[in-house]
């Protein structure tokens, strides 16, 4: 609820010198190093980079969802109220309280054998405050809120019976129904076509604004940032190349890599047909 915004901590995310490493048969592989980020409550931040830049590892690390073979180290890593460095790693991760995640492909993220109603209902009931009947009503309301016109039918359906766009909306509903303080969206529209992507991003940004939820969006499309984020962080090979207010960074990038990304990436933001520029390896 909009009134609550003022009661939340000033900074949703405070991370300094984050390092994420994975154990491989050939030793440790460093996916992310020297990552620092501060996000104030209610802000929208985009993390941009190409595949292999480490942006997804950051996202999973901040959500506390890394597997056992991963090591997370940092000088500071506070997400909402949780200190990531003090958390024990478990075989099956625990949720970082107050953090929700939206993934790229709802077909993989949603549980294939349970109905939408069951998955949404358990997410709403959470740790058990709401009754089943009340949760069912709320589930219907949430589906309408994400733009699904026939909530009764969708509640009874299973994910594979729905279209791609509807599945993505269901996923957003499940992620936001617990009213998290932070929503991490890992390439939420990369698997969708243009029109669906725009609709979905509008939905995400408006819902998070309504709830006062901080939004951390991972994407490889730098053009999206212009419309949908306040701050942008550019990553390359596990390191932060540049970060700052979106307007400033996109208008006058200080790093060569950022400029190259802007020039070569076709995106929603650019509607002219440039010829694609080839990127030479920039370190």
């Amino acid at each position, binding site marked *: 609820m909009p009134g609550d915004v003022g009661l939340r901590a000033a900074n949703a995310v405070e991370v300094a010198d984050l390092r994420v490493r994975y154990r*491989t048969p050939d030793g440790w*592989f460093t*996916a992310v190093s020297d990552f620092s980020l501060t996000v104030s409550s209610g802000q929208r931040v985009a993390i941009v980079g190409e595949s*292999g830049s480490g942006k*997804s590892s950051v996202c999973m690390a901040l959500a506390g*969802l890394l597997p056992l073979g*991963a090591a997370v180290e940092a000088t500071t890593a506070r997400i909402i109220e949780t200190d990531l460095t003090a958390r024990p790693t478990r075989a099956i991760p625990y949720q970082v309280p107050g953090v929700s995640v939206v993934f790229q492909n709802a077909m*993989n993220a949603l549980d294939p054998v349970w109905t939408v109603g069951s998955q949404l209902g358990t997410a709403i009931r959470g740790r058990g405050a709401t009754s089943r009947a009340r949760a069912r009503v709320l589930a219907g309301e949430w589906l309408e809120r994400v733009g699904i016109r026939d909530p009764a039918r969708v509640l009874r359906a299973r994910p594979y019976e729905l279209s791609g766009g509807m599945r993505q909306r269901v996923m957003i509903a499940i992620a936001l129904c617990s009213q998290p303080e932070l929503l991490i969206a890992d390439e939420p529209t990369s698997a969708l076509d243009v029109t669906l992507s725009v609709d979905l991003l509008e939905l995400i940004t408006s819902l998070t604004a309504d709830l006062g939820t901080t939004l951390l969006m991972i994407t490889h499309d730098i053009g999206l940032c212009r419309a949908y984020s306040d701050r942008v962080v550019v990553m390359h090979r596990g390191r932060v190349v540049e970060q700052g207010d979106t307007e400033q960074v996109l208008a006058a990038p200080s790093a060569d890599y950022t400029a190259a990304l802007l020039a070569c990436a076709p995106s929603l933001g650019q509607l002219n047909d440039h010829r694609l520029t080839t990127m030479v390896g920039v370190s």
Partner: protein
Amino acid sequence: MTTATTPPTAAPATRRRLPGSASMVPVVAPLVLLLLVAALGPLLAPYSPIDVVAAPDQPPSTQHWFGTDIYGLDVFSRVIAATRNDLVVGLVAALLATVIGVGVGLFTGTNESRGGVPGSVARGVTRGLDLFDALPQIVVGLVLLAFFGRNLLTLSVVCGLLMVPTQARVVRTEVLRVRREAYLESARLSGESERGLLLRHMLPNSTWPALENASYIFGVAVTVAAGLGFLGVGLPPPTPEWGAMIADGATAASAGRWWSSLFPCLALAVTVIAFSNLAHQYLRRR
């Protein structure tokens, strides 16, 4: 499927790189030993494996290294002699299963997606093999041996037939996988007939897994044969066979006379482990 958390994998090792000679010694040595024992059998046995030579139930001694069993036969000589029988069963079964399995696997793999008669036949064969595989091998083996005779040849053939579904399935999977690649290739290349591509690339690629699997099949076949021998439905007594020897020694074992069961057990274990180790080493090198 890749998630954000999957770390990048190291570059894949080259396929089918033959292993270096040094590390193969501990794998090959027991096999060579077994084959030598099987080949030289009668020459190595101090006593006759089928004649009574001493008092029954003697513990191991300098005269009888493995002791004597409940009939008074020398256990050591029988274990040595049984090596030949059990190894022959394993080898013939593995060979038969592989040859037939490769043929059936190639047929079903290439024809399953076609329409008409070949398609239905291929799909029917696959289903039939799955159901055949579901039946307990001991049961089928028992009945087949009873019907067709209890001798070394039928035992080997029956064990081989029991293993055909496994090999056929391995080859079929590989064929289905290679076909997808082959189509991509032929789409890129021009002027290369699909049939030529399939024959030249698919055949050798698809049969390799079956050959690697053959040593594992060997182990399973010997175990099944030993099981049949244990039940007393395998080779007729007093033919030496490890399973039958274990059965003979079972009642003695429950009375504390462990030697007539233990040594054939060990021989069986060494054989199966040696051959499945071979499969392991091959698979690890891929």
